[in-house]
């Protein structure tokens, strides 16, 4: 049952992303309130200050059955469980705005079959980059990720998903999320 709920939430998140609006919530989610401990078997594939992207197995539900997925780890807390395509029980898209102490991260991950998976790069707009700045996607195990780590005091405005022809695939607003 919980898998179904997770998949539903992920699907709704992807739908909100596709519509270009982030759902009207105007604060960061605390990692400790939405995340789960990461299994020690996970392998880190990308890391920077404040986060890791890991591939491994995560339990889902009380039956402790494991599924393979890509997870964003903030501090020591895992956020979400994404694909890859065909993985039983894993979502095909994930979006989170998460805070852990001083670290604030916007994460959008999609599988190859997910919306806008053909993104070439991102342009993020914020109080720190009022004219936009380019951000490269992280591609891992058939999934594509926007991982936007906020600078101190940076309030996000939104992100453009740009395709290989320089055209706009999607624009997603984060106006209202605070700069701390």
């Amino acid at each position, binding site marked *: 049952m919980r898998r179904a709920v997770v998949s539903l939430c992920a699907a709704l998140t992807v739908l909100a992303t596709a519509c270009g*609006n982030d759902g009207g919530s105007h604060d960061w989610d605390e990692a400790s309130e939405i995340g789960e401990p990461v299994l020690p078997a996970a392998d880190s594939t990308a890391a920077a200050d404040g986060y890791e992207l890991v591939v491994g197995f995560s339990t889902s539900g009380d039956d402790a059955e494991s599924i393979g997925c890509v997870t964003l780890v903030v501090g020591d807390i895992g956020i979400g469980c994404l694909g890859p395509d065909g993985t039983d029980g894993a979502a095909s898209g994930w979006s989170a705005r998460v805070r852990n102490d001083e670290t604030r991260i916007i994460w959008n991950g999609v599988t190859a079959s997910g919306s806008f998976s053909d993104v070439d790069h991102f342009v993020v707009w914020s109080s720190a980059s009022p004219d936009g700045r380019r951000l490269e996607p992280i591609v891992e195990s058939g999934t594509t990720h926007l991982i936007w780590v906020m600078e101190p005091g940076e309030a996000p405005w*939104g992100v*453009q998903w*740009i395709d290989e022809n*320089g*055209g706009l*695939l999607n*624009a997603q607003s984060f*106006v209202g999320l605070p700069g701390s």
Partner: protein
Amino acid sequence: MTEELEDRLRRTYRAVAERTTVGAGERSVELRSDVDGPRDATRWSRLGLVAAAALLLIGGLAVLATTRSESRSSAGSAHVLPTWIPTAPPESDEVSRSRLALTSITTDDAVDVLTYASDSLALTVSVFRTSIDEFDGDRVEVRGGQSATVDGDEASGRLLWDGAEGPTIVVEWTGALSNGLASVIALVDGLILVDESTWNAATEFGGFTENWEIYRRRVGAVSVDLVGDLQSGLQLFVGGNGFSESSIDPGQCVREFGGGEDGVALVAVSRFPTGTATVTWFDGIDETVDLVPFVEGSALGVAVFERDDFDPANLPDVRCEESQ
């Protein structure tokens, strides 16, 4: 109104100038040293006429300057928001076209500039609130009968539209457009005139907004909305169905089924702000409703038929006619 006043003033200047010239010509005669009393009286009378004429001329110039200042002041508070932006032609293997990305927004007292781009097409929409130099070019029709000037071709060029009640719009493009010059005309047709507070709200965060609703207007039983933001694009919504201005064929209406607090209705949206919309119902009865401007400064009109005994999945055709 302003042109009328200017014409009147110009006629006054011409009359004053003619009388002033006559007075000056006679004055050389008046300057003789042997002039007597009555001649003095005539002289002073004519000098008075010259002085009065000069005062009238100065006053007229002042009025004209004030009138022009007010006119420019009216345009000074005007901004526009696009409801449709052209796209580049699709690559051969592309199923769908990606849109142009909004890459910059600049604004000052004189001009707003929105810049859009992809790798193959760049386009700017400049909105001038001060006088600019016009350029020569071909005349094309925009916004249901108004005239614009086009200089260039489908690969690059510029279009100037000087709206009677608003700012001067210049659209410049470099690169092929998906539908040629018609794309640029559709852009101009879809511009919505907005006030400064709406412009500021739409551009404050780089074109991303917190609230998607720009306008909401009740027309009869239904809600007609302008929603979205500059980054994602603005869209017109009627009864929960979105469409763009470019999807409306000239002479026809877009038909939508709208639900409202007071019932359901057939809604027609036209490419001109005023005129009529006529539907022939399934029982053969014709009904005609006046179009009203969608919002102030819009080139679109909307009409609502408040009758709820029709099938939303099989809407009757609606014919729109522009008022002459």
